[in-house]
């Protein structure tokens, strides 16, 4: 039997809207760093909270042990979101379980993290012992390798490896790499190659990049970056 339907479209929509009130169906499961606002912190206040950091990251954030990253002169937004990651992390998750950072960050308030980040960003990097350069690493960093699909690192981290030249909030949490310890960089790149961590949108950028790098390339880039002297602060 043919049924004549002359229902109002608005009526149907209203019924559905009423039935659908609630939370979003599928929330994002990562922190989107593409839409952040730059942080502001009190470096002086951060100094007090950062005292404990020196055990691993050295005086004023200049790490002695090369497995630990130097924090001095690092970009504040990067440091803040890295601390936020550790604070939010499940300490039993394999990636974080081996790190003392989740426990260290657990007690920090949001203001603490901003202040600590501001503090280390304001510190001067001390020159590391002279290290030999690495031509392959320099080429990969500055030019990439088109044939292997390796993008040039400088596109995001700057031609001088001191952070991106591009302006925009979405670049605020891209770290400076200049003069960073090579073993630490190797560890980070290896983790990225294994799709870890999966905390922020920036991690997903590095997953794709690191997957194009073999062990030699990772070592070469890390060595070249570690050989760069600190940039003088202006």
């Amino acid at each position, binding site marked *: 039997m*043919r*049924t*004549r*339907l*002359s*229902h*109002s*479209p*608005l009526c*149907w*929509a209203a019924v*559905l*809207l009423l*039935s*659908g*009130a*609630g*939370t*979003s*169906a*599928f929330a*994002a499961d990562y922190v*989107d760093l*593409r*839409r952040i606002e730059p942080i502001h912190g009190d470096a002086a206040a951060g100094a007090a909270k950062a005292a404990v950091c020196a055990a691993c990251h050295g005086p004023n954030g200049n790490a002695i042990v090369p497995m630990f990253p130097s924090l001095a002169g690092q970009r504040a937004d990067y440091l803040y979101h890295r601390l936020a990651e550790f604070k939010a992390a499940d300490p039993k998750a394999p990636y974080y379980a081996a790190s003392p950072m989740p426990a260290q960050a657990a007690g920090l308030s949001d203001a603490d993290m901003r202040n600590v980040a501001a503090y280390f960003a304001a510190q001067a990097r001390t020159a590391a012992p002279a290290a030999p350069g690495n031509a392959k690493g320099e080429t990969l960093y500055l030019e990439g390798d088109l044939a292997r699909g390796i993008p040039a690192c400088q596109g*995001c981290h700057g031609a001088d490896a001191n952070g991106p030249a591009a302006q925009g909030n*979405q670049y605020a949490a891209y770290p400076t790499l200049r003069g960073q310890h090579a073993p630490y960089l190797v560890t980070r790149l290896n983790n990225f190659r294994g*799709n870890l961590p*999966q905390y922020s*949108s*920036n991690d*997903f*950028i590095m*997953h*794709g990049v690191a*997957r194009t790098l073999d062990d030699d390339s990772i070592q070469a880039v890390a060595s070249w970056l570690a050989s760069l002297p600190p940039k003088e602060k202006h």
Partner: protein
Amino acid sequence: MSTSAHPRPSSPLTPGFSALSSCVPEQKRDSRFRLSEEQKQNRWIPAFAGMATMMLFSTAWADSGIGVDTWRGNKLDPTAGQASEACDARGTTWLAPLQRRSPTGNLYDCPNEAPLAHEIGEWLYYGVLQVGYIGTGDQGVAAWNRYADWRSDKAILSLLDAHFERPSDGSYVDVRASRISDEDQYYQAVFGKAGAYKVQAFVRDMPNILSTDARSIWNGVGTNNLTLPSSLTPGGSTPAQVAAASAAAPTMTLGVKRSKQGLSASTYLTPEWTAYVNLSDEQRKGTRPYGGPFFFAFAFEGPPFNLNDGGVNETIKPINDSTININGGLRYAGPEWRFDFSYTGSFYRDKYTSYNYQSPFKLTALPVIPGAIAAPLYQGQMSTEPDNNYHNFQATATRKIPWNGEISISASGGRMSQDDALIAPINCQGVFGIGLGNLQLGPQNPMLYDCNKWNTTDALSRKTADMRIDTSMFDARIVLQPTPQWTLRGDVKYDRQDYRNIYLAYNPLTGQYGYPSENGTQGSIVPGESGIWDPRTDPSALTRVRSLPLDIQTIDANFGADWKFSDKNTLSATLDYNRYEPSNRERSQIDASSVKLTWVNRSLDWLTLRVNYTYLKQTGNTYNFDPYEFTWSSSMPGYVPPATGTPAHTVDAMRKYDMSSRDENKIDVMATVMPRDDMTVSASVRGDWNSYDARIGRQAYDTVGATVQWEWQFATRSSISAYAAWDRSRLGLSNVQDQANGTGADPTLGGSNYALNGQWWATDAQRDWYGGFTLNHDIGRVRLDVNWNYLYSRGLTDYTYAGPTALAHLVGNEGPGPGGGAFPNMIYRVNSITIGATVPFSERVSLRLFDYYERGRINDWHYLGFDQGLVVGNRVYTDAGPQSYKQNLIGLLVNMKL
């Protein structure tokens, strides 16, 4: 993203389709998979690997991008599920928070939400099954049901789309299907291996409803033999009897079902060489309204003859044909060279060569000759499209050259031919023409003809058409970019069409030339207008005896340069020269030269401004207003001009619009404004003014228009857009009525035959409005979509005339001097709105409820009065015309991700 503000297709299952549709097929290949929650516990599929794999897929898909068989959908959902996909909340890239913009500043579409993939061994699969029910409350309106079968409430398979792939080697299988009814359905299967091969097969049925309010006075609709019912006497019924038969006939639907099957394959022979072939066969079956001439005797309805005979019949043509299309070739893509060698063929076959029909009305000879008696004809015929073949071979070579340039050379040769069996000139029995006192054949009746000597193919000069057109083309292009600031372009193209045969209408049985006009009825009503020239008995008859070959050669050369004189400004100039050399036309040479200037400005970050200006001037050699003399009997040996001279074929001041000298000025101004990163406003104005050098013929054709479009992607999964457009065109033409009913010999405008008081002017003014609005937004768990489209089109034809002799028919209130008037407005208005909501019940299951409302209002004066009956005097109409309508389609669909 679509940026033009033309009428948008409205469709119930395509929320946002109107504003955000153009990239949809590509978005199907969105690279990032999602796994279901339980799978996330096990493994995260590398997104980058997926991206790389799917990029390879895109390459393979692109191999078959030839022809029209690359996408399948239906009117319910032209995008086959693509437009209703939600945006991926992750955006397009991790590097930027918003959608990127095109070079002109428009926002690209968001990528679709990644599919939920399963694993079976090495294979991944994902897909969607969409089933449900639609209710239409169909009122049987053709416009509503055109290209869709929404004639009844029904359960439907809205979409089945299943995709399987094996990342390890790039193998994939894709199956897609939709079924609304037996007449509205498609099924497609694709399998292949990225970088290796691809095979695709499909079947598709689509209805094309042409009329749902037709009434036929004939039996045998759908066959090639239309006969009158017993209530009517062929050749002997009165208009009242025919009108009664029409009114008693049930309404019927006329339409054509298109069924198409296709198979295509492509394979990489080497990384550089690709071979491809595409085959398709489309059958069309059904009926459509068509003509049925039996002489336009209504010209004599009024005084002084007061005749009511002849017949203009809107018959019903049977459609039963097939078109096979073949395309195949080899492609090479290397670092320096590219080659493409291809063949394209098309083969049309019609089951019927012709169809017959009976005409109900009697014939009466014009009483201008004492004793004139019309032959009692009642049988007519109409040929169908002839079977024909098309072949074309093309080769293209492209090479990179210094200065960052590229040169490309193409050559092709083709042949269009048809050699179908010709039908007899007439299908009558007995005699046709006019008898003087009786209908006995013999010298006493020179205007009477024996059907038996014309209703056979022996009456033709040959039995088959044997017609052919050979085509050839050569094209050379070059592009150079000697510096980043300069780009130089050049193109020279030569094109030619040669007609290889001609037909002379000669009847070897009678020694006469020509073709009985109007199924023999014109010569049975009007003495001397049989359409037949006889050098012995009627040497002054003027009629067509030859076909008209229209060979043409075209040379097109253009040169252009783009100069980027600053980072934000580009100027372009293109000079174009066209020379047309047609045969047997009013001019043997036409030259069209144009200059096009373009300025693109991006000085402001938030604005892209484009301005184009074109000036074109078309001239030619001497205009011969009557180049067709050789096709008429007046060119034959033995032709004797009548005492008053051979009638002029047309007026000497006539300038046909494609042959006429012409000046054209065209300007476009387009602005794309980016007030925010997530918002775009586009606006354009355009004008095109054509002035023709014609006192008789087309004199002017001007168009102006404006569009504005706004789009705001206010959240990752939400967007809103609106558009409005307006355009207006004006076509002006003039003609002149001959004063001697086609017998005057003087072609001069202002002369005795084409007197100036017989001149008239008509203006066809068209005005269109378009508007639309689209919203896609998540409200809580519900995804809401709204899509509204509006179209208003108005056509107005008005006319003026110098004097009443300009009019073919007088209604009686014309004064002695100039006058004018207008036909009623032709108005076409369509309002459509879709409101839909999708409610997710789980990660895989959602429910979609939508309502699609469409209202069409059509005013077409051609069909005025048909509510009183379809028979007007001796005119029989079958299609009662387009109907205004209000229709509502409501649907409930369950959407399951497989």
